[in-house]
């Protein structure tokens, strides 16, 4: 089960971040909050997404088997790319129009 979590965990974290930022955008529009909150949240989730990448590359949390280690690291990189690319609109577009 641990290896399954290593494989799926990073992208599930991204999915949670993506959903949270989408939800936050809805709340922001409903409550008239400042858009800075969204940008700060994006920076936070990008930083958060780097954590599994670092953890999976360590001896303690990474897999010992070569295949799982390589695959989980590749998926962690996908997670980082995904969190930057899919949530980048918070930096460039108006929030509620």
């Amino acid at each position, binding site marked *: 089960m641990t290896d*399954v979590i290593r494989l799926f965990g990073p992208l599930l974290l991204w999915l949670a971040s*993506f959903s949270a930022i989408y*939800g936050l955008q809805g709340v922001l529009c409903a409550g008239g909050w400042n858009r800075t909150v969204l940008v700060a949240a994006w920076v936070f989730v990008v930083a958060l997404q780097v954590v599994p990448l670092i953890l999976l590359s360590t001896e303690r949390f990474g897999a010992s*088997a070569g*295949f*799982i280690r390589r695959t989980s690291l590749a*998926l962690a990189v996908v997670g980082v790319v995904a969190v930057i690319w899919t949530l980048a609109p918070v930096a460039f577009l*108006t929030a509620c129009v």
Partner: protein
Amino acid sequence: MNALRRHRELSRIWASDPGWRGLLTTVNHTDLGRMFLAVAVTYFFIGGILAMLIRAQLASPRSPFMGPEIYNQIFTMHGTIMMFLFAIPLFEGLAVYFLPKLLGARDLAFPRLTAYGFWCYVFGGSMLLFALLAGIAPDSGWFMYPPLSSTLGSPGINSDFWLIGITFVEISAICAAVEITVSILRYRAAGMSLSRMPIFAWYALVTSLMILTGFPPLILGSLLLELERAFGMPFFQVEHGGDSLLWQHLFWLFGHPEVYIIFLPAAGVISTILPVMARTTLLGYGWVVVAAISLGVLSFSIWVHHMFATGIPHMALAFFSAASTLVAVPTGIQIFAWLGTIWKGRPQMHLPMLWIVGFFATFVIGGLTGVMVAVVPFDWQVHDTAFITAHLHYVLVGGFVFPMLAALYYWMPHMTGRKRFFKLGETAFWLVFTGFHGTFLLMHWVGLLGQRRRIDTYDVGSGWEVINLISSVFSFVMAIGFALILIDVIIHAVIRSRGPRNPWGAGSLEWAMPIPPPPYNFASLPEVASRDALAKSPDLALHLAKGEGYLGTPRDGLRETLTVDTATGRPNGIVVFPKNTALPILMAFVTGGIFLGMLIKAYWLVPLAGAGVVAFALRWVWGLGHRRDRGLQDAGRGLMLPFASETADPPGWWGSVFLLIANATFFGCLIFGYAFLWTVAPNWPPPAWAVTDLRWLGLALAGAVTAPLAIRWATVALGRDRSALPGLVATLTGVGALLAGAATIPLSLPDPTRHAYDATLWVIGGYALFHAALAALMTGFLVARATAGFLSARRLGEARIVRLWVDYAALVTLAALAAAFAPGLLS
């Protein structure tokens, strides 16, 4: 024991009951896989006939062929049948039939569950088929948008058939997904580590996990819409705080992953067959696994791209547009891995390869138009036009039907032990391929010219006449092609032309057995040291038949297979499968009573059938396990292993974990719906917040602390060979407090029809109440099992399973109470 005697003995142990009774009582995956496939293909032809009726109607302007009432039912049922009654069950059938054979096991994890899922599919599908024949079929389109599908737009029973019938069928999908996930993770050949798994198993694993998390939103949406239709709970009615967009969110939270749930198994088929046809191995196995997992998870973030035209803010559109473009990357990785495999090998243009080439040509076009509609301004132009119809058919027919036809011709010799007699298949390929492109390539064009999807007719002079006529003519060419395939299969079944055991020279384990396969698959279970075990050891089938693998000596007439460690594939237990039984079909029949009661508004039947399901479920699980410790058993090759029921994490524990993942997704979607209505729907806040006596909340909190602690106490006591009863009684007390706490939610809101807030909290409260009751039932069952001597320090798996459900009940009750009463307390 010689090979022949072993074969006879194993055949006797594993055989289904003789005659027609065997169909009803079989729990064997080979039988059930074939039954799934046969029923799914039947639905494909029914859906295909409906498609021909649609094309006949659209062949000419102002066609008198059928009126809008019938046409609406026809196109709704075409989509519904193809998506829910053909595509998903076909994947289930394929996985049920082949996975144990590919993985080197004798059956799937829960054979009775396979059978139960199959019968739920048959009964649920029959409801829809009956509606179609009776002329009262759903008519709001296969995605059933309210208010068109609510009582306002569809006051008859038509929509109820969809909501109830499809939910019934989805039980089958959830059962299959749990089954497949646990089987892939635990029921493999010795030595088959994750890195040595057949590539199809990776795809099936991702697909199953997607079903577990993708189907609950639709089940929830169907439940809410049915509650609105039946009892007036206004989830989708704006004037009472509801929002019809909530349905779209829930539907597409399912609907877009569904596209990948359909495509990924097909990609698994291609990744399996293509290297064999190219006489090499798959290029970039690891990258393909990364791509499959990425695609599976990324596909959950693009549901809103079906809603670009609903007025969602630009930033949110951009999130989903970006995510939609991102999924093209892992898809591209797979395409290039397949092209590289062809490049590296020496491809042979056998019939399966022909279908794969057809897949490439078609799916790539569908993928590219997919990237086009991922771009918001373009999507706005073509939204709800025939361009989208063309795009989705390129993706689904090209990306699923063509690979499945490759699978049909690749594995047909395995299923029958015969070879093809005539070469009708090649002619059929060209007819289907040409017919398909003639039909749907043109549909892009007419869509760009402005033809909306789902229209029943159009005017002379619209400029669409010739295009539609050509499209219809080609659709009949395609239909003739499919009919030829059917004839080809019938000829194959009729003419007994014996084929070789491994006609393609494949290296995967399903060919290391006699064909057609015996009911036990492998006379003894293999140990593998590579991904292509048969290629490395061509005599493997012979060695296994001689009993040189694991579990080669039948023991006490038991149906046995191995479980392994998930990561390494090291054997760690012996599973004893159940014998043939009518329990699954009977339980599915009684489950049908719940759905039938809701459908015909005979609500007295619902609790009655529910009680019947509980009774059958208790009977089902009572027969598991032993009353005494059996210790280590000889698994062959000098290996001693315990029975799985004497391990800490028996298969049932794994099944519960994945069922709870699906369950938690359902609850998460419910909370999402609540938050969505709160923040987006007009006419909020509600007239009044829910309030309750704080003492009830205190009681529930005490229960949420007591129940999980007490069940742990019981488990620890069991582990030390002491009585579990004091802990279990304390657990029951805690669960009772949870029940009382959860009941306060509906009691505090007397009228669920007043506002969407009240209605939503009723569902949230009902969910918590249901799980607290379930935890109470399971704990009570555990008391009975402990009293009857089924639990011991070795046999505490059942207690660990109940612990999962008690913990979950405590968590959801707390979350439900917070959702219900926090706003009132804070205000």
